[in-house]
């Protein structure tokens, strides 16, 4: 019941990432609201969460077991894998990655409104587009489209960087395909309310879900099953779960046990974590959980930046905003973005006259210059995982 004790507001979520506006990096949310944890509102639990989760379950969607879309499982793994890594590199939330994955799946899996060709750059363009949209829905600060790609890139020589106008055209296609419905249910729709005051546990769940999101089986199971599976896995890993509390959380989420078990098995397979509670399992699980968590830690902010930001709080909001943007995590790459902006010679976009915006957008989407010596995303995404599996 410990997890329930502090659930004073099911919709209130504590800080997940380092707050650039906080004076002390180590300051906990508790210090700002010291009286808060003592307030219990059992009525909130009884009245609010079951109804909210019922509404979530009614909205969940799963994909039938058809092949195709993305040009195969490898295409999805490349696209969603890129998204997961990009979210980590920019310090975006796990929810942003989950939203982007949901948009990708709704668009490009069988039954979706869009089709993706075989070329690797198409999967990347789709990933960049859905990632940008998810970031704009969910994050408080999002860099311009070109900078977003450069900061997300593994290195400066990433072979695919799309012009802002190309991504923008793709954005409009995706939005139209999704009917502008940008708030699908994700596993975090369940986990964030129930783990609102268990930040460490929530981060563990985020870590295991991020690790498995690129797996081809992800869209074949409901978000509630993935949420429940994450609770099972992290409980077995000894991340602060207690049996009775977890039982109540799982009952609230109310995912079918067989589906939850399947998802837990997939997580176990992908991360190497065991969801059996035994000494060897706990020990090995801890190491692998740590390895998994490391892959998704947000980049640390230098204390100098934090110190600089605290000075700006004395200024007006406008200048504080401007200066905060200037010293944000994306600023160091400004010179790179400038050099990347000009159109490559001889690659002027050819726009056919078209009656509709979609045709125009399709005609205008041209492949970027490919750097031959770089690994294509498929291989990069495969390389990213062996270390985790081998651990």
């Amino acid at each position: 019941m410990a997890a329930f004790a502090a659930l004073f507001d099911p919709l209130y979520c504590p800080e997940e990432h380092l707050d650039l506006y906080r004076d002390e990096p180590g300051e906990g949310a508790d210090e700002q609201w010291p009286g808060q944890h003592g307030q219990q509102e059992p009525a909130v639990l009884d009245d609010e969460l079951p109804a909210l989760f019922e509404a979530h379950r009614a909205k969940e969607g799963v994909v039938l077991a058809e092949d195709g879309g993305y040009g195969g499982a490898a295409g999805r793994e490349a696209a969603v894998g890129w998204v997961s890594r990009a979210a980590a590199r920019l310090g975006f939330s796990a929810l942003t990655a989950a939203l982007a994955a949901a948009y990708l799946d709704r668009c490009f899996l069988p039954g979706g409104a869009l089709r993706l060709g075989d070329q690797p750059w198409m999967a990347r363009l789709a990933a960049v587009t859905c990632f940008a949209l998810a970031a704009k829905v969910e994050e408080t600060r999002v860099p311009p489209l070109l900078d977003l790609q450069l900061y997300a890139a593994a290195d400066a020589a990433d072979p695919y960087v799309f012009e802002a106008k190309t991504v923008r055209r793709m954005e409009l296609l995706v939005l139209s395909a999704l009917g502008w419905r940008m708030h699908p249910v994700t596993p975090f729709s369940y986990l964030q309310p129930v783990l609102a005051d268990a930040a460490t546990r929530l981060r563990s769940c985020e870590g295991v879900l991020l690790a498995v999101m690129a797996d081809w089986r992800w869209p074949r199971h409901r978000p509630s099953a993935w949420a429940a599976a994450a609770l099972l896995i992290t409980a077995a890993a000894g991340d602060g779960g207690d049996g009775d509390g977890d039982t109540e959380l799982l009952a609230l989420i109310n995912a079918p046990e067989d589906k939850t078990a399947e998802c837990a098995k997939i997580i176990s397979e992908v991360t190497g974590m065991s969801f059996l509670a035994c000494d060897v399992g706990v020990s090995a699980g801890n190491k692998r959980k740590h390895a998994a968590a490391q892959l998704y830690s947000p980049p640390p902010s230098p204390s100098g930046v934090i110190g600089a930001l605290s000075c700006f709080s004395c200024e007006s909001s406008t200048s504080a905003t401007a200066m905060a943007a200037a010293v944000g995590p994306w600023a160091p790459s400004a010179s790179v973005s400038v050099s990347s902006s000009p159109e490559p010679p001889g690659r002027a976009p050819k726009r056919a006259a078209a009656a509709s915006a979609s045709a125009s957008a399709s005609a205008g989407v041209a492949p970027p210059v490919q750097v031959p010596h770089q690994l294509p995303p498929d291989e990069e995404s495969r390389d990213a995982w062996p270390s985790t599996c081998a651990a």
Partner: protein
Amino acid sequence: MATIQNKPTPTAPSTTTGGGLRAMDLYEKLEKVGEGTYGKVYKAREKATGRIVALKKTRLPEDDEGVPPTALREVSLLRMLSQDPHVVRLLDLKQGVNKEGQTILYLVFEYMDTDLKKFIRGYRANHEKIPAQTVKILMYQLCKGVGFVHGRGVLHRDLKPHNLLMDRKTMALKIADLGLSRAITVPVKKYTHEILTLWYRAPEVLLGATHYSTPVDIWSVGCIFAELVTNQPLFPGDSELQQLLHIFKLLGTPNEEMWPGVGKLPNWHVYPQWKPTKLSTLVPGLDSDGYDLLEKMLAYEPGKRVSAKKALEHPYFNDVNKEVY
């Protein structure tokens, strides 16, 4: 070359990707009636049916940002929330291009003939008070709409009379303009200062709290409640500091006893120690149940502020015919 194709997915309301001329051919603009967070709003007639609608037009700029977050959030949240009778209904979405080749987005809404700001101003101009029962049914609908929005995990963050649309005949009230709304997940780090009206902003936001949630909307509801009763804004500050001082002068300067943790908020300073004024003096014209509810909406400590859902159960609303609204 590119093999990305767009297949239309039939849904209601539909999203039509077509030429701007085509979108404009469907509607006849009658008059400009206002501006939302990012676009102009027109009263228009649908040519095919003669139905009167509100047309919200925005140009999606050709810049490095892509589709603006405000447009993205408003449309997506409206798609999530429009089913509720107390949120303005989004009837259709048209995506097109104008003569200059720029992308234009048209949001087609049900037409509401006025908003709460105009409604209140009309009474003020006539030196009349809004009838007590009218205040009550408007407040009931507002709490119901906010309860629905919060129940779906969304913060509005810009509740004010201008964003509450009304139908004069039916006294229906609907929440609109979700351009600054967002799904409740991680704490929001910063308000956009220039856009938001200060008068309805919660004290924890003014004090720079980085953790806030549904109570910020309830504070706005409380301010609107008071304004409905008196025809005057309760806390009309003209800067962030003045807004805070205005609140403290009237409700008393908060301290650690009444608001644990207030002293640790980023913008906290030493303030003059004002004593609270009675609500019955600040907002003359309510009965005791009304004052009790208003007090619960304007509690300093966010966790102590009444929720919208709980407000609906308050005795103040006992004589509202709840099946009608």
